[in-house]
């Protein structure tokens, strides 16, 4: 177990190294010029050149990357070009909000997805099954900004059940969590349905029934713990999908997380922030997968770590 975690952490260092290099290269190749953004339209060529030299953006790519990497290994993510604040401070102040949103989304998609999947599997081939699967299909295919705006209109503007936007109370969390989680719940309900149908056919379910257990107990103690196993590993991958989703959802709901930060930074070509957010996201994905793998270990005694 310990060796497994250490091995995975060593692997993740290489993943982060790769991510930092590729992102840095992509931003370097970008036609947008960060210096123009800082200097403004009316700046003279001289001012522009000055700023460029000051930020070290006149140096060759490899030198720029080496400098960034040198700082990175010391834990320094650099300063924002425009906000003149440490990137790490900016991210640290916004990360908790994003993590909270993700947590809400995970809970929402698991509860929705697993319930829908189980009910559909038990009512296979019926109208219930068909409507649930239709709903999950809509959940998977609807763009998040559409779902978000629709939620806002119905539940915040018309019904006034939840606040329109912002951050602070549990009520603020509900709509953005559902919006972010609805995509995953669509996936999960489909996976859960097929996994459940599969498990219900297994011999040990018949054994459990032959023991004289009630339907509910067979379902909760025997079918469900086996059917969720493939789902657990997926949660790690979800963290990556969420990272894309929060950029949209946080903008729609005015949620002060790193998604919003990234969105603003992309518009203004604020390279240190984009780099910082990307690396933090990569870390989150790596950690999310590790946690999901460790959770699988506990859920399935057959898995052995090497």
């Amino acid at each position, binding site marked *: 177990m310990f060796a497994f975690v250490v091995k995975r952490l060593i692997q993740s260092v290489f993943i982060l190294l790769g991510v930092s290099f590729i992102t840095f290269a992509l931003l370097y190749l970008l036609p947008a010029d960060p210096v123009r953004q800082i200097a403004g339209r009316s700046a003279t060529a001289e001012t522009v050149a000055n700023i460029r030299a000051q930020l070290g953006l006149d140096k060759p790519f490899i030198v720029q990357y080496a400098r960034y990497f040198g700082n990175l290994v010391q834990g320094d993510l650099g300063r924002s070009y425009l906000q003149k604040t440490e990137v790490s401070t900016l991210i640290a102040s916004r990360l908790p909000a994003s993590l909270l949103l993700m947590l809400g989304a995970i809970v929402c998609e698991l509860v929705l997805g697993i319930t829908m999947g189980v009910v559909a599997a038990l009512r296979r081939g019926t109208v219930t099954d068909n409507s649930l699967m239709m709903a999950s299909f809509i959940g998977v295919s609807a763009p998040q900004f559409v779902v978000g705006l629709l939620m806002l209109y119905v539940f915040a503007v018309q019904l006034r059940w939840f606040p329109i936007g912002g951050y602070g109370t549990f009520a603020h969390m509900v709509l953005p969590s559902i919006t972010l989680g609805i995509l995953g719940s669509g996936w999960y309900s489909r996976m859960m349905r097929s996994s459940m149908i599969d498990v219900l056919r297994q*011999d040990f379910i018949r054994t459990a029934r032959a023991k*004289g257990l009630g339907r509910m107990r067979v379902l909760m103690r025997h079918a469900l713990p086996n059917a969720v196993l493939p789902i657990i590993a997926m949660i790690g991958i979800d963290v990556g999908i969420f990272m894309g989703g929060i950029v949209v959802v946080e903008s729609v709901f005015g949620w002060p997380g790193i998604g919003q930060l990234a969105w603003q930074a992309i518009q203004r070509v604020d390279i240190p922030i984009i780099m910082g957010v990307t690396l933090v996201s990569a870390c989150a994905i790596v950690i999310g997968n590790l946690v999901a793998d460790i959770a699988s270990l506990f859920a399935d005694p057959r898995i052995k770590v090497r």
Partner: protein
Amino acid sequence: MSMRAKTNSVTSVVTDEHPTVLSVRQLDISVRTEAGILPLVQSLNFDLKRGETLAIAGESGSGKSLTSLAIMGLLPPPAVHVAGGQIIFDDFDLTKLPESKMQRLRGDRIAMIFQEPMTALNPVMRIGDQLTEAIRAHEPMSGRAARIRALEALKAVRLTEPERRLKQFPHELSGGMRQRVVIAMAIALRPDVMIADEPTTALDVTVQREVLDLLRILTTEMGMALILITHDMGVVAEMADRVLIMQKGQLVEEADVRTLFAAPQMPYTRKLLSSVPRMGKGRQSTVDTSMQPLISVRDLQVTYDLRGGILDRVQARVHAVEKINFDIFSGETFAVVGESGCGKSTVARALTGLVPHKGIIKFEGQPILRDRASQLANTRVMQMVFQDPMAALNGRMTVGDLVREPLVIHNIGTPQSRTDRAAELFERVGLGAEVLDRYPHEFSGGQRQRICIARALALNPKLIIADESVSALDVSVQATVLELLQELKAELNMSYLFISHDMAVVENFADRVAVMYLGQIVETGSSAQVFGNPQHQYTRRLIAAAPFPDPDRVFLPREDSEDDLRSPIMAKGQTPKRLKYCSIDEGHLVAI
């Protein structure tokens, strides 16, 4: 073991001491399909007396398993259902009992054990929890009291280290141990009736012997009535007091076991009994072993690395096949027998280049090289026929394409000539050329295995490796497929490497035999030598364990097996001790 309960119960079925516990009357089971309602079991009648063992025997599709599921009220809903008749137990008609009442009987008064011990237990739940759950579902008691009952049940099924087993998960136990756990679950509440659906079919022969013995002891000790569902007439002969023979959902014959084996009345019963391969003293081989062997294997070794730790270094190795030697001569059937995990299938895979191996394999005196071209050329002379024909045939290709494919891969002939060849092969294996455009699912199990044989023959191989090729087939089908293989061998002058766990089949089919245990050959010789004069203790155990279709056979007390826990996994750097052989007779070698 020789004095079985049967002697008592057969003679006393009519007395009041053995009242009927279960009666099945005019039972009809049907399935709803798109083509309408099809009958699966029709007007079945039988009685089960307290303490007796009733065997329901038949081939696949006979309805024997469905009958047992109907008694348990576990027919797969919604399509399969009881269409008529009664199942009387304790003055209740089980077919009309509401689910809540049925649930109370199930596991408590009527218990069931299933065929596949590997999948019959919940993989993510501890053995102890699965046992106590069954107990507490019927008798409200504290967790501790239930644990004590569970422990008693595990002791009753003679499971080693019962306290430790309670905390283990199913995957930590072998197949035989799991089947004991399933039996413990079934007997924990001392049911009146136990239904065992092919309880030993998935087990190795020596484990089967232990489980059958256990079932026999338990039924006598507890006075349970046992319904034993099986396809194996050997198991029937050993276990049953009375026998029902079923075919295609109908009762063919009912008799007490001695009468049935001594004087079967119905033609189907006679056919079934005559298809059962019987163990004798081995057959004499007519193969000339003085010539150059077709295949010569020297020091064949296959190991798998088990890695671990932070640096993923090799920590242990599975020694699947450990430096074995054998020759196969032209026109010969060479059999490798052994139990699961002994390395017999790995030998086949090594020969065909499907697993990396060490050692020298010579074909007609020429070593087979490891490069791709040699391996491809090798497949022209060696072909495999696998155990499960459905899994071995791609369901999305027509059977004609499947048989033509080897010719396409090796670039032989024109499309027309390939089709002609496929048609010719289909005729030869007894299927007829008109079925070439059909898909595998349209055929029965035996027909599919014939298709696999046709595919293996397409390239005119010199050697066919048959890896448990007849094990999944019904006995009557098995007999015809073995006959086909025997004819083809003579006609096409091929050799077989015949891999099997079934001692009786091997004894009847092979010229020479090698018995494998833990990756090494423990005894080899002609079929007559190995079966007529078995020398190694393991060979004797295998032969003694095989069920025998004769109800009057007297069993010798079983030699206790203490090496059940031996494993082919060795720490890095260690190697298994290489066996030394002594020669008993010309060509008969035994490990010492």
